[in-house]
C-alpha cells in the first residue's frame, strides 16, 4: 500500500557560481516515512535540506507541501509551515536561559501585553524537553553551563516542539554520544508515530540503515535512486554513492607514479583538536593526494602543514630540518598554500591582480627595502601571461575576476615566489571546466619540474585522477594509503572514508 | 500620542530658535547676538544717526573678536557694551570661534581675523592662558593690526612684557586687581565667622588664578581660616553641572566646611553650586558663599542668602581699549606707549545693589551710552585727553553708572 505524499519537489536547481549544487533534483517524501539522504561530499544533500528549511532559495523548481506550493524565507516560516531542521553547527546562545534558547524568535507565543511570561515559557520548555526525554535539563539554566550534547538536545527539542510534519536532521548525530543518539532516534520515532516524516542526512551508513525506512542517494546534485528497507545494504549504497561521471576526462593519463625517493617535506605525529597522530612524507616531484569526508580534518591538516595552526603535538619539517611553525617560515622555505576559502584567505579581493601576485615575493624583490615598481610589473605580467589570466590589465581589481581566474592569480602568486611545494586545498572548487583543465595541466608541469604538490580534495575522481599517492583520512586519522594504479576505484576508497 | 505632540512642539521650537538666531546673526553681522546685543545695536543705530553728523571725519574701521560662546552674566554685558562702543566709534566687528582651547587655536583664530582684514583685534585672556602672547604680538606686528587684551595682567620682567611692550601695534591691556577681589570675598566670609572654606578656582599657575589665591591666603591668615580643598578641574569648573558636582563633592567629603569661595567662573558654576546647597537644605546660614564674577541670578541668591557677597562687573576694559584703538586709527592717539590699564571691580553685598546693577546694566545693556563713547573720540571732542580718560577709568563704579543716567 502507498501512503500519501507529504512533500514533493520537482526539478530543483541551485548553483553557486559555476558549480551546480542541485540540477533538476526531484524528490518525494511519504507520510510517516523516515527517509535517509546520502551522497558524497558536495552531492547537494545539505543544499537541498537548507532549501527546504528556508536557509537557501532555489533557483528554479517547485516544492509542494501536502499539495500546497511551498516557499519560505526563513527557518521560522518553514517551522510555521511544519518543516523543522536540526543543523550541524551549534544553534544556541550562551548568555541566555535554556528556555529562551528553545523559543528564539517565537517569544511572541508567551507575551501578554508585550511582556514575555517566563513562567509560561519555562513550563513550555519543560514540556518540550520532556517530549524528547531530556527533562533532566533545567530550562532556567544559562545555556553556557550545559555541555555540547545538551545544547544539541535543546535544538532537537526546539525542532520537535511544534510537532513538525517534516523533521530534517543534517549530520547532527556525529556531535552526539550514545545517550544523545537515543534521544534523537526517540524523537524520530515519535514524529513517525504522529504520522510526520523525517529526512535524515548522515555519513554513518550503519546508523542510516538502523534508523531509516528508505534512503535516497544523491550524486552531483542529481537524484540517483531510492532504496527501501529490504534492499538497503551498505555495499550497495556505497556503489550508488560513487561513480560520478565526468563531462570529459582531462585528468592525467599516465600511470607511472614515479618520484624521487628524496623526502623534502614531512609531518611527524601531528595531533590537534581535529587530527590525531598523522604522519606523512612528501617526496620530490610527487603529487600527494589527501582525501576524506569534508569534516575528516584534511583541511585542518593543510593549515597545519603551512604553519597556520599550531598542532598540540608533533611537528612539520622541511628538507633542511627547519621546522615550519608559521606561514612566513613556510613561504621562506618555498611552500605555497591555496586556501579553500579563496576570496577571504587566498587573495585580497580589493587588490589589483599585480599586487596580489607580488605580495609573497615583495621581500625578495626589494633591494634595501625599496621595491622598484618595474620589477613588480615584470613579475605580474610574466606570470599572468604564463597562466593566461583573463583580465583587462594587471591593475584590475580581483573582485571582478571569475572564480577560475582568481584561482589562477593565487597560483601565479606562488609560482612567482617560485615555490617548491604547493599545498592545494580544494584547488578546483567552484571553478569552471576550462580552468580546471589548465590547473591540472599546471600540476603536471609542476611535477615534471621536480616540484611537489599536496592536493587536498573532497572529490574522489580528482584525487584518483591526479595523485601519485593518496592518503585517506577519517575522523582525523589516516586510515589508508593508496598508490597510483589503474585499478584504484572510488568504491575502494569510499570504504575507508565512511 | 503625547510624544507626537511634544515632538511637533519641539520641531516648531527648533525651527523658531534657528530662525531667531539666524536673524539676529544677520542684523549684527555676528553670531554673538543675544537679546541684549540686539537691543544694544538697535540703540546704537539711532545713536550713530545722532553722532553721525558730528563725526564726519571719524574713520570707519573693523575689529576682530573671538566668539565668547553662550551668554553669561560676565561676558554677555561685556560684549554687548563692546559692540555698542565699536558702533559708536564708527567701527564694525567680526567674530571667529576657536576650534579648541589651545594656543594653536588662538593663533589660528588671530590669523583668520587678520585674513578677514580687520584693523584691530581685541582678545580676552586666551593668549595669556595658553602662553602664546609673543606669537600673537609678532603676528599682529608683521601684518600691522592693532591689538589689545582684557582681563590680562602683564608684569614688568616677564617674557610676555618684553614680548608686547616694545611693539608698535600693541595698544593696551586691561586688568583688575585680583588679589584685592579674592581678598574681598574671603575676608567677607571671615567677617561672617567662617572657619573652614573650600575653593572653586582656576587651575594653579594661571596668572589671574595665582593672584586670587594670594588674596585668599592673605585673608586666610588674617582671619585664621583653613582651606580644606579646591576644585580646579576646568572640565568641572566651566559648567553649572560641574558646580553642582563640585558642591556635592565638598559636602560629601568635608562635613566641617562652612564657607565656599568661588574664585572666578561664577557665571558658570554658581547656579549649580547653589542648587546643590538648596537640595541639601544647607547654605543659608550654615554655609557662606562669596564669589568672583557676576551671575545672572545673583540678585535672588543674595536675597535668599545663599550668596553673601559677589564681586565682578569688570566689563569695561575692552571698551577702553576700543577707545584707544579708535583714537589711534583716527591719528589722534592718546598715548604712543602701550597702556596697562587697571580697571575697577564692582562689589555687591546686598540685594539692593544687585537690583541697581540689573536695572542699569543688565537690562539697558550698557555702562557707557553711545553719546559718551562718541565723545571719547578726539575728532568729535577735541578736549578729550589722557587725563579725562584716566578719570573716566578711575570713576567707574556702580554709583558712577547710576549718576551718569
Amino acid at each position, binding site marked *: 500500500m502507498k501512503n500519501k505524499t507529504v512533500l514533493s519537489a520537482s526539478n530543483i536547481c541551485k548553483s553557486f557560481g559555476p558549480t551546480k549544487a542541485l540540477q533538476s533534483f526531484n524528490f518525494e517524501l511519504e507520510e510517516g516515512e523516515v527517509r535517509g539522504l546520502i551522497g558524497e561530499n558536495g552531492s547537494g544533500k545539505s543544499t537541498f535540506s537548507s532549501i527546504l528549511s528556508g536557509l537557501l532559495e532555489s533557483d528554479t523548481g517547485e516544492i509542494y507541501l501536502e499539495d500546497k506550493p511551498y516557499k519560505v524565507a526563513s*527557518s*521560522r516560516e518553514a517551522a510555521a509551515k511544519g518543516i523543522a531542521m536540526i543543523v550541524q553547527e551549534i*544553534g544556541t*546562545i*550562551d*548568555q*541566555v536561559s535554556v528556555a529562551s534558547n528553545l523559543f*528564539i*524568535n517565537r517569544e511572541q507565543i508567551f507575551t501578554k*501585553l*508585550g*511582556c*514575555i*511570561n*517566563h*513562567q509560561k515559557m519555562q513550563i513550555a520548555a519543560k514540556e518540550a524537553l520532556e517530549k524528547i526525554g531530556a527533562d533532566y535539563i533545567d530550562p*532556567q539554566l544559562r545555556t*553556557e553551563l550545559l555541555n555540547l550534547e545538551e545544547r544539541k538536545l535543546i535544538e532537537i527539542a526546539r525542532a520537535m516542539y511544534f510537532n513538525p510534519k517534516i523533521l530534517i536532521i543534517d549530520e547532527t*548525530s556525529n*556531535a*552526539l*554520544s*550514545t545517550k544523545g*543518539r537515543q534521544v534523537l532516534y526517540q524523537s524520530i520515532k515519535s514524529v513517525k508515530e504522529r504520522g510526520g516524516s523525517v529526512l535524515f542526512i548522515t555519513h554513518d551508513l550503519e546508523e542510516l540503515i538502523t534508523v531509516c525506512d528508505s534512503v535516497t542517494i544523491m550524486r552531483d546534485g542529481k537524484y540517483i535512486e531510492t532504496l527501501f528497507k529490504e534492499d538497503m545494504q551498505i555495499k550497495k549504497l556505497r556503489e550508488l554513492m560513487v561513480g560520478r561521471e565526468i563531462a570529459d576526462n582531462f585528468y592525467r593519463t599516465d600511470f607511472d607514479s614515479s618520484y624521487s625517493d628524496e623526502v623534502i617535506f614531512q609531518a611527524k605525529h601531528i595531533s590537534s*583538536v*581535529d587530527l590525531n597522530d598523522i604522519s606523512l612524507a612528501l617526496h620530490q616531484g610527487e603529487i600527494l593526494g589527501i582525501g576524506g569526508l569534508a569534516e575528516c580534518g584534511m583541511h585542518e591538516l593543510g593549515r597545519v602543514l603551512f604553519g597556520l595552526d599550531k598542532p598540540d603535538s608533533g611537528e612539520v619539517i622541511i628538507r633542511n630540518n627547519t621546522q615550519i611553525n608559521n606561514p612566513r617560515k613556510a613561504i621562506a622555505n618555498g611552500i605555497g598554500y591555496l586556501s579553500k576559502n579563496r576570496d577571504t584567505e587566498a587573495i585580497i579581493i580589493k587588490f589589483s591582480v599585480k599586487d596580489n601576485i607580488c605580495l609573497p615575493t615583495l621581500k625578495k624583490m626589494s633591494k634595501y627595502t625599496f621595491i622598484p615598481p618595474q620589477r613588480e610589473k615584470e613579475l605580474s605580467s610574466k606570470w599572468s601571461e604564463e597562466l593566461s589570466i583573463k583580465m583587462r590589465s594587471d591593475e584590475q581589481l580581483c573582485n571582478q575576476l571569475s572564480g577560475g581566474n582568481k584561482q589562477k592569480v593565487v597560483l601565479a602568486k606562488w609560482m612567482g615566489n617560485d615555490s617548491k611545494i604547493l599545498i592545494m586545498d580544494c584547488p578546483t572548487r567552484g571553478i569552471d571546466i576550462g580552468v580546471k583543465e589548465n590547473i591540472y595541466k599546471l600540476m603536471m608541469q609542476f611535477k615534471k619540474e621536480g616540484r611537489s604538490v599536496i592536493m587536498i580534495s573532497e572529490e574522489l575522481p580528482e584525487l584518483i585522477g591526479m595523485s601519485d599517492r593518496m592518503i585517506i583520512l577519517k*575522523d582525523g586519522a589516516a586510515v589508508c594509503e593508496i598508490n597510483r594504479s589503474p585499478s584504484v576505484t572510488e568504491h575502494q576508497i569510499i570504504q575507508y572514508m565512511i | 500620542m503625547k510624544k507626537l505632540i*511634544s515632538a511637533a512642539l*519641539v520641531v516648531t*521650537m527648533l525651527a523658531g*530658535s534657528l530662525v*531667531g538666531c539666524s536673524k*539676529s546673526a544677520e542684523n549684527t553681522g555676528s553670531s*554673538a547676538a*543675544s537679546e541684549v*546685543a540686539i537691543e544694544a545695536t538697535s540703540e546704537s543705530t539711532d545713536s550713530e544717526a545722532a553722532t553721525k553728523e558730528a563725526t564726519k571725519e571719524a574713520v570707519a574701521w573693523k575689529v576682530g573678536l573671538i566668539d*565668547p560662546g*553662550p*551668554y*553669561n552674566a560676565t561676558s*554677555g554685558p561685556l560684549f554687548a557694551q563692546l559692540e555698542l562702543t565699536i558702533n559708536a566709534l564708527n567701527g564694525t566687528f567680526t567674530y571667529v570661534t576657536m576650534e579648541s582651547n589651545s594656543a594653536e587655536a588662538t593663533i589660528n583664530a588671530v590669523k583668520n581675523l587678520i585674513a578677514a582684514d580687520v584693523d584691530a583685534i581685541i582678545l580676552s585672556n586666551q593668549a595669556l592662558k595658553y602662553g602664546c602672547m609673543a606669537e600673537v604680538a609678532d603676528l599682529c606686528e608683521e601684518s600691522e593690526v592693532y591689538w589689545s587684551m582684557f582681563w590680562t595682567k602683564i608684569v614688568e620682567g616677564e617674557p610676555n612684557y618684553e614680548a608686547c611692550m616694545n611693539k608698535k601695534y600693541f595698544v593696551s591691556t586691561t586688568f583688575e586687581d585680583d588679589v584685592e577681589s579674592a581678598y574681598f570675598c574671603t575676608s567677607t566670609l571671615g567677617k561672617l565667622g567662617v572657619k573652614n572654606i573650600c575653593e572653586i578656582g582656576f587651575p594653579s599657575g594661571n596668572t589671574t588664578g595665582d593672584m586670587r589665591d594670594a588674596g585668599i591666603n592673605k585673608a586666610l591668615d588674617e582671619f585664621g581660616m583653613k582651606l580644606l*580643598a579646591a*576644585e580646579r*578641574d576646568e572640565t568641572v569648573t566651566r*559648567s*553649572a*553641572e560641574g558646580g553642582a558636582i563640585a558642591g*556635592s*563633592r565638598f559636602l*560629601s*567629603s568635608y562635613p566641617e566646611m562652612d564657607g565656599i569661595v568661588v574664585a572666578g567662573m561664577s557665571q558658570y558654576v554658581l*547656579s*549649580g553650586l*547653589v*542648587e546643590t546647597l*538648596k537640595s*541639601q537644605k544647607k547654605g543659608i546660614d550654615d554655609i557662606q558663599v562669596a564669589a568672583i564674577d557676576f*551671575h545672572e*541670578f545673583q540678585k*535672588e541668591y543674595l536675597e535668599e542668602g545663599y550668596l553673601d557677597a559677589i564681586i565682578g562687573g569688570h566689563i569695561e576694559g575692552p571698551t577702553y581699549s576700543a577707545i584707544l584703538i579708535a583714537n589711534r586709527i583716527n591719528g589722534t592717539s592718546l598715548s604712543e606707549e602701550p597702556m596697562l590699564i587697571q580697571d575697577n571691580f564692582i562689589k555687591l553685598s546686598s540685594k539692593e545693589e544687585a537690583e541697581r546693577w540689573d536695572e542699569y546694566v543688565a537690562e539697558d545693556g550698557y555702562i557707557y551710552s553711545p553719546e559718551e563713547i562718541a565723545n571719547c573720540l578726539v575728532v568729535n571732542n577735541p578736549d578729550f585727553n589722557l587725563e579725562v580718560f584716566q578719570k573716566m577709568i578711575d570713576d567707574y563704579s556702580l554709583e558712577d553708572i547710576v549718576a551718569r543716567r
Partner: protein
Amino acid sequence: MPEDNMGQECGIAALLDIRGGFRMRSKQQIKAFIAGTLYFIMIPAATYLIFVCLRPASFLNYNSIRLIFEQSIYVCILAWGMIFSMKAGDNDLSLGAERILGCIIGILIAKEIKSFVGIPIGCIGVGIIVGGLKAFTNSAIKMTSIIFRIAYTLILSSAGAIIAGNKSLTLSSKYTILGKAPWCYVFFIVLGITLLVVEKYSVFSAHCKVLSGNEKLAKDSGISKEKTTAIAIMISSAYCAISGVIACSFGAGTASSTGLDSFKLVFPAMIAVHVGFALEKHINIVFGVFAGVMITNTISTGLISLGLASELKDTFMGFFLICLMITSVVTARHSEERARREVKAAGKKNIVNT
C-alpha cells in the same frame, strides 16, 4: 514600543516573579543568585570602603553616600539606555552631544513658556528626533562605524552652539524641580523598573541577545537586524533624553560643547555598561551597570577628598575601560577554543560508542 508605560504593572509582575521564581529554583541557581547579589553589593562597597579607610571623617556618613548616589543617577540612566545598542555592537559616542543639544533646547523652551515642563519637552523631543534620524541613517547606510558617530557628535554640538546663540543657558531654581530629591528618584526607579522589564520580558531584548550571541542564527531564525538596532537606538536616545532632563535640572543649566568634548559625558556610562557586561553572568545587567556607575563616581569623589587632581579620574577610567575590554576579549577567545575542543571530543566519544 517595549518601553511603553504599561511596563508598570508588568514591572510589579517582574518583581513578584523574581521572588516567585526564586522559590522554585535549583540549588545551583540560588548559589548563583547569592553570588550575583554579593557582586552587586560588594564591588561598589569595596571601592567605597577604600576611601572610608583613607578618609573616614568624610566618608563615614549617610549623607556622602546619598550625594554620590544623586550624582550617579543621570549617568546611570544614560548608561542604561546604551545597554542594548552596545549589545548590538554600536558604541554610540554621539549621545553626549545629543544630551547637550536636548538640554539647550529644553532650557530655551522652559524659559520661553516659563515652566519647567519645557525641559522634558525639549530633551525628549530632541531625543526622539535625533534618535529617529540615527535609526534611519543606520538602516540607510548599513554601517555603524564610530566615524559616523563622531560626525554626528560634531553636527549635534555645533547645532547646539548655534541654537544657544548668545542666550543664557542657566536655569533659575524655579525650573529645577526635576533634578531635586523626590523627582530624580522617581525617574530613577521608574526607568530602572521599565528597563528591567524590557530587558527581562520584552521580545525585543530577547532578539537583541540573539543578535549579540550569534548573528547567523538570528538571521536564520528570521530576526531582522535593522529593526532591532533601530529600536535599540531609539531606546538609547530616550534614556539619554531623560538623563539630560535630570542633568540640566541637577546642575541648573548646561554649557554648549565644542567638537568632541561631549565624549567625556558618554565615557563613564560606557565604562559602566562594560562593567555590566562583565558581571552579566552573575547578575542582571541593569544592576551591574548601576554598580559600575557607583564605582566610577565614588572614585572621582574620593580623588577630590584625597586632594588629588580630579582629572586623574579620566586616567583611571581610561585604564579601567581598556582592562575591561581586554579581559572580555581574552575570555571570549578561551570559551571559543573550549567550544571547538568540546565539539571534537563529543565526535570522538561517539566513535568509541558506535
